């Protein structure tokens, strides 16, 4: 921390409040998407497990919703109280947007309560109940899209921001990329959180039939988490490409300058997610009769993913920024000549695609195994439940970590090249510091989720 800057400062408070808001929001937006899908599947297949999954998850969403709003409020208070020049501009410029946002939130909250409290009452009219759920999701997505407009405006405002219209400000260069990336990431996030609940319930269940159900629920949650995960590198690439097209200096800051090593860590995180997902499949396939013959393929997939991850991680240089001076010979910290291509985008792109393709392949294998073998739900290795704890931890940390990357890409600007950040906190924090803050946010988030979960599931049972 530079001198004269206190350890707990306005920027840090805003950082924590906004990230917690974002994490809860991701959950209450992502989970309802597949809650509704599960409810529909339950109706179609008459498999009661889908119905149970949907209902139990919705209980958590209903309670988490208020925490989302709480942190949103906290975030707004800090903005208005401590960043007045910025707040004045943003709330004036986006006044209609915020008005619409408030209205939509009101309708969405009401619908959410209706959806939850009429679950049993509308048991005979599932079509209507599902329609309410669909509407809830559409509203939630709209709410997110509006705020994404404000957030993306800060990084990529239109030309002449002072005179731009509300629509021009909203429909800026990275609005679409951010919408796409966040929409898909929310689904993945929701899936992994459901997998986490399932694993905790599995580990604390006394009855065989409960364990069978929670094993299945963990599988479904994980499946959704990974299905959305494989789309994310593409969505992220689209988003970054939009940033590059808008202004090449931002993307150079991201990939070659101070934030470059943040992306190396991001590579580690995403690699862990893919490998964890495949490892879960490895453990799962054991409980399917006749599943063992697929293990060679899974092992092959892990080899490919490991090589892919290695390529993804190899940095062009170990120097932390473009203006850093090496303390020793430059050859010790720069990639050797003949392997330069490994540090460039084509190699990285191929490595990521290879990981995505083999992971998708393993999941297809798994479906084949289920179709041709006999599944023994509940008999899964307990290590698999620990994997279902590992994956959400890494997924949430990834989100908490990517947040500061995006915000700090603006450098010393509140609104890029338009409104400078004149506070003493406008610096880009070093990697270690950002990771520590992200770690604290992740743990706080899980403690709060744990409390909600305990409230929803354990308190009621006594």
């Amino acid at each position, binding site marked *: 921390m530079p001198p004269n800057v206190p350890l707990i400062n306005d920027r840090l408070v805003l950082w924590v409040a906004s990230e917690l808001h974002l994490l809860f929001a991701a959950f209450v937006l992502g989970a309802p998407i597949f809650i509704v899908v599960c409810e529909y599947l339950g109706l179609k297949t008459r498999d009661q497990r889908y119905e149970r999954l949907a209902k139990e998850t919705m209980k958590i969403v209903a309670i988490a919703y208020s925490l989302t709003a709480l942190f949103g409020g906290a975030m707004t208070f800090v903005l208005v109280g401590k960043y007045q020049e910025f707040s004045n501009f943003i709330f004036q410029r986006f006044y209609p947007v915020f008005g619409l946002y408030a209205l939509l939130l009101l309708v969405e909250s009401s619908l959410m309560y209706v959806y939850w409290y009429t679950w049993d009452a509308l048991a005979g009219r599932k079509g209507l109940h599902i329609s309410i759920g669909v509407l809830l999701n559409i509203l939630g997505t709209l709410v997110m899209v509006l705020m994404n407009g404000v957030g993306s405006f800060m990084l990529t405002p239109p030309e002449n921001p002072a005179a731009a219209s509300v629509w021009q400000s909203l429909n800026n260069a990275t609005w679409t990329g951010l919408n796409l990336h966040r929409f898909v990431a929310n689904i993945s996030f929701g899936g992994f959180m459901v997998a986490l609940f399932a694993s905790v319930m599995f580990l604390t269940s006394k009855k065989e039939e409960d364990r069978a159900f929670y094993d299945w629920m963990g599988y479904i949650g994980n499946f959704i988490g990974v299905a959305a995960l494989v789309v994310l590198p593409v969505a992220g690439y689209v988003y970054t490409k939009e940033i590059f097209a808008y202004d090449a200096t931002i993307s150079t800051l991201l990939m070659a300058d101070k934030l470059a090593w943040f992306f*190396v860590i991001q590579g580690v995180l995403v690699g862990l997610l893919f490998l964890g997902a495949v490892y879960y499949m490895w453990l799962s396939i054991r409980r399917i009769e006749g599943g063992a013959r697929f293990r060679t393929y899974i092992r092959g997939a892990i080899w490919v993913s490991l090589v892919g991850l*290695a390529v993804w991680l190899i940095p062009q240089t170990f120097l932390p920024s473009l203006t850093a001076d090496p303390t020793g010979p430059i050859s010790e910290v720069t990639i050797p000549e*003949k392997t330069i291509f490994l540090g460039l985008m084509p190699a990285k792109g191929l490595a990521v695609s290879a990981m995505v393709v083999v992971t998708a392949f393993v999941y297809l294998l798994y479906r084949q195994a289920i179709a041709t073998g006999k599944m023994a739900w509940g008999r899964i290795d307990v290590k698999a439940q620990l994997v279902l704890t590992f994956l959400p931890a890494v997924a949430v940390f990834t989100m908490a970590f990517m947040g500061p990357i995006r915000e700090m890409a603006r450098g010393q600007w509140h609104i890029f090249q338009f409104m400078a950040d004149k506070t003493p906190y406008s610096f880009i924090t070093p990697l270690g510091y950002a990771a520590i803050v992200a770690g604290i946010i992740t743990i706080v988030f899980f403690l709060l989720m744990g409390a909600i979960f305990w409230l929803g599931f354990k308190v009621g049972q006594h």
Partner: protein
Amino acid sequence: MRIFITVIAVIAAIWVVPVFLSDDTGLKFGVSYRVLFTLFVMFAGFLFYLLGAPESKPFKSTARAVGSAGLVFVASIGAIVLLANLSPQFAFEGQASTGASSEDRGKAAFFDPGVGCFLCHVVETSGGTRGPDLTHVATVVETRRQGMSARDYLKESLVNPGAYVVPTFDNIMPPFGDRLSPEQLEDTLAYLMSLR
């Protein structure tokens, strides 16, 4: 056991082989890379150990089960935070110097992240490579365009970069006419003109 031996052998190879390679091969990975590969091989070894591990017995009690899950959780996050802290860190950036001369102020502007010239242009050994190297730009551009002085050329490049794009480079430089105040523009030009 087999995995352990393989891991040790590979790590040994990572550290021993480069010693015998000369720099001309273009394959000599430096110390930092060898550390990265070592950590990676250790991780891969751990993963393969997990793949081969026998089925675990169910937990003896709920408390142990939840405790293990919590431990996995904290350990994963802790490991990542540790890795991030061991990775290369830049120093907190200081304030851009105000400097006595126009050239000094121009140099500060050049390397100011809020302006961003250095992100795409190299001077000496500092900077990015998306745009042309500017180490000797004042000399290089003196005769680049007929009838245009070096200073005029540089000013046009700042204010209207698309007017002339150096061959093999893309037209991606943003215009700086609005981003720099007239004083900053003059200071930056003074700095660039000093790069002979």
